[in-house]
């Protein structure tokens, strides 16, 4: 049972008889009055056990968008129900109005919406619904908590999709380019067209020219149906927060942009979230919309507090795609972790595949480096310089092993990675 503010007010009204007739009797009588009224109210309150609750939740919602959990509440009791209903969403679900008041005649049903504005990506849960049914006097209420679990999948926001149109245009420009710019192995024959001044004479198709009166050159288009394997590192290094975003979320943004771009570019995309085992896996060859299945697979990803095991990445990549592929490793270039984990495993990848290592750079290190106002700040600058030097050394080592490195601040990483993909595709290295 629950007492309400009205009962407390009524108790305070008891001050009048207590002052008018001082003594124990007036106190006891007033207390008795309160008890009787509260008891009566409780007895007349509709039972919260007779409230039928059904909830409708959207399948998923993108982070930053509003959503609502709709409750249909049906009064199965024989009395009118005056109730407050609370849906116990976890705080990051951002429930705007979790407590809903309800005045429900017997046998009727009402619809109530709890508006949600999630503040975090992931699987958000609601476990219980609490019903507090007050009596007709509103002095006391019966309260019941009902187990009614529900989940809302909050998808990554994919803010980097604003880069998509410009990158797609650049990708389209690759199509039908003449051999003037692109030559060498790996390009595919596209079509024939008339020679214009400036074309490479070596690309003249003499056979076709012989058939026609004009000089004809071959044009090329970038290869299609190549394999892109995006490996997202979810180990402990992905828990680092850079500016106001964890490294994992920046990696998700970059992976989404690259995957969508590669799919539109006609390539096959495989996505792996990996630390010591596969946390999520999506293949573009499977049925359904790639972006949809990607964001649902990425939604529940969280940094795991374990060290990544890069020695198993090669096997996972082979399992995802048996062909020569572009392997993009979204990881961190932290000196210790990379030297122990990634560097020894990299040669086995680079001998079969084209490897790009993408990592978020911390712009705060640049700020620390430049601040030399006090002794403490200078020591911090020295430490930041050391971190940057270590990072540069690691980058150089990775490049020596034949992999590309994309190292950018959080906002820049998705477009820079897309650029790297377009550049490799243009160069026919896929």
């Amino acid at each position, binding site marked *: 049972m629950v007492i309400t503010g009205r009962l407390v007010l009524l108790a305070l009204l008891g001050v009048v008889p207590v002052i008018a007739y001082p003594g124990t009797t007036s106190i006891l009588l007033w207390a008795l009055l309160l008890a009787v009224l509260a008891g009566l109210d409780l007895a007349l309150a509709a039972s919260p056990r007779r409230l039928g609750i059904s909830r409708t939740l959207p399948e998923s919602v993108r982070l930053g968008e509003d959503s609502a959990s709709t409750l249909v509440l049906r009064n199965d009791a024989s009395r009118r129900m005056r109730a407050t209903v609370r849906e*116990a969403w976890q*705080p990051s679900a951002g429930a705007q109005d979790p407590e809903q008041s309800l005045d429900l005649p017997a046998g009727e049903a009402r619809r109530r919406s709890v508006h949600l504005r999630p503040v975090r990506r992931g699987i958000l849960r609601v*476990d219980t619904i609490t019903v507090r049914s007050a009596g007709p006097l509103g002095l006391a209420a019966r309260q019941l908590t009902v*187990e009614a679990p529900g989940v809302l999948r909050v998808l990554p926001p994919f803010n980097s999709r604003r880069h998509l149109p410009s990158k797609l245009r650049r990708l389209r420009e690759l199509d039908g380019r003449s051999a003037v710019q692109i030559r060498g192995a790996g390009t595919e024959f596209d079509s024939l067209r008339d020679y214009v001044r400036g074309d490479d004479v070596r690309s003249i198709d003499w056979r076709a020219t012989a058939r026609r009166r004009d000089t004809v050159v071959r044009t090329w288009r970038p290869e299609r149906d190549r394999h892109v394997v995006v490996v997202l590192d979810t180990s402990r290094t992905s828990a680092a927060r850079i500016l106001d975003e964890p490294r994992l979320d920046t990696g998700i943004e970059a992976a989404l942009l690259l995957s969508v771009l590669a799919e539109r570019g006609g390539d096959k995309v495989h996505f792996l979230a990996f630390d010591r085992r596969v946390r999520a896996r999506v293949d573009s060859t499977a049925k359904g919309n790639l972006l949809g299945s990607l964001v649902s697979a990425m939604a529940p990803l969280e940094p795991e507090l374990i060290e990544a095991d890069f020695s198993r990445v090669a096997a996972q990549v082979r399992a995802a795609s048996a062909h020569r592929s572009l392997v993009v490793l979204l990881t961190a270039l932290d000196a210790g972790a990379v030297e122990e984990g990634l560097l020894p495993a990299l040669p086995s990848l680079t001998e079969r595949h084209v490897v790009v290592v993408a990592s978020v750079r911390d712009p705060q290190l640049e700020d620390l480096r430049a601040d030399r106002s006090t002794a403490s700040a200078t020591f911090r600058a020295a430490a930041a310089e050391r971190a940057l*030097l270590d990072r540069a050394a690691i980058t150089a080592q990775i490049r020596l092993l034949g992999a590309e490195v994309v190292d950018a601040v959080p906002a820049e990483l998705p477009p820079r990675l897309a650029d790297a993909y377009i550049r490799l595709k243009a160069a026919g290295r896929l």
Partner: protein
Amino acid sequence: MTTGSRHPAAQVAARTPAAGPRGGGEVMGDGRSALATVRSRLWRARPLLVGAVVLLIIVVLTLLSGTGDDDAPLSPGNAGPEGARAVAEVLAAQGVEIRRPASYEEADALLGEGPATLFLNDPQQYLSATQLTELGTAADRAVLAAPGERQLSALPGGFDLVGPLPFDPGGDAPPPSAQCEDSGAVAAGTITATGTAYSGPVTCFPETIEDLSGGLYVTSADGAVAVLGAPTILANRSITDEGNAALALASLGSSPTLVWFEPTAADVVAVGEGIDPLTLLPGWVDVLLVWLLVCGILAMIWRGRRMGPLATEPLPVLVHAAETAEGRARLYQDSDAVAHAAANLRAATLVRLARHLRLDRSATAPEILDAAARQGGRSRSELAERLLENTPTTNRELVPWAQELLDLEKEITST
């Protein structure tokens, strides 16, 4: 329905979720009756209930067992070393009736009933001079145990307080002898030298304190009022020493009744016209306060009841990325690694200069200096001195050196 089971936890575990995660199915109630809910609440609250019961038992036992053992010093019922039960027992065996009044009024009434000796033991000096004088005159014979100077002021007979005896740790001062006419004192001969000296008509057991002479046992000329400056001679611990017992029995046992009065704080009379402010409040204030307390408890219950259990938030682990650099900086600073820090700063500057001057990554420091001297306005020797040869050794030198390094780098890379 699972009413009747003794383990609600097992019931909760056995319950299946009523609705699927995506909703659809209707949930109604928690599958239990109100009675079962009450029972499970009580079951869950049983540690608290047991604690409350134990607390209640402790409180009740303390209240009941608080019989108030008589352990006051010089109390006739106290058998401890500080008590005076020995004297009281001997006096009772000799036929003296010992009465212990609880208040001043009762003592006054007892003294009025018939011939009686008053023994007044008031170490806290609760009684006023008037009260003391009234009791002293009402009694046939009054023995005052170490009264205060204020209390003596109204007593006729010219008693006065001289001062406490100096502390005698070794106990080697000779015990004072009677040296007076009082028969009890003469019978005692000597008593333990302790307590406070008084002056009066008949001074026994004289002691001199700072040129003032006084005695430990002083009586009025007719012997009706006696001031015992050394009441500790009555204590069980010291009653058998010297002639203490003789003096005690002689002074207290002269009447068939002995009124042994130990005043309490309740006997204090208010002096002056002060009025207790509480008496100005109307009578209903106390009742009102009680009712407001009840209202306050109700308000606490009202505000303290939550709408259901708290929702938990599983928080992901997040670490500030620059934390490792900050930690390393603190290590440098704590260990005064100035040379190490300077080496880092210099190496970073050289690497950036090399990149700006389009030198190979493997370029050595002199090569970088050569290129920088060709590029900028400074001579090679000056650059070498400022970049390579100057090395700070203290924190104080490190800061300007590091700033100069940064300025030099900006100067070269901006040209």
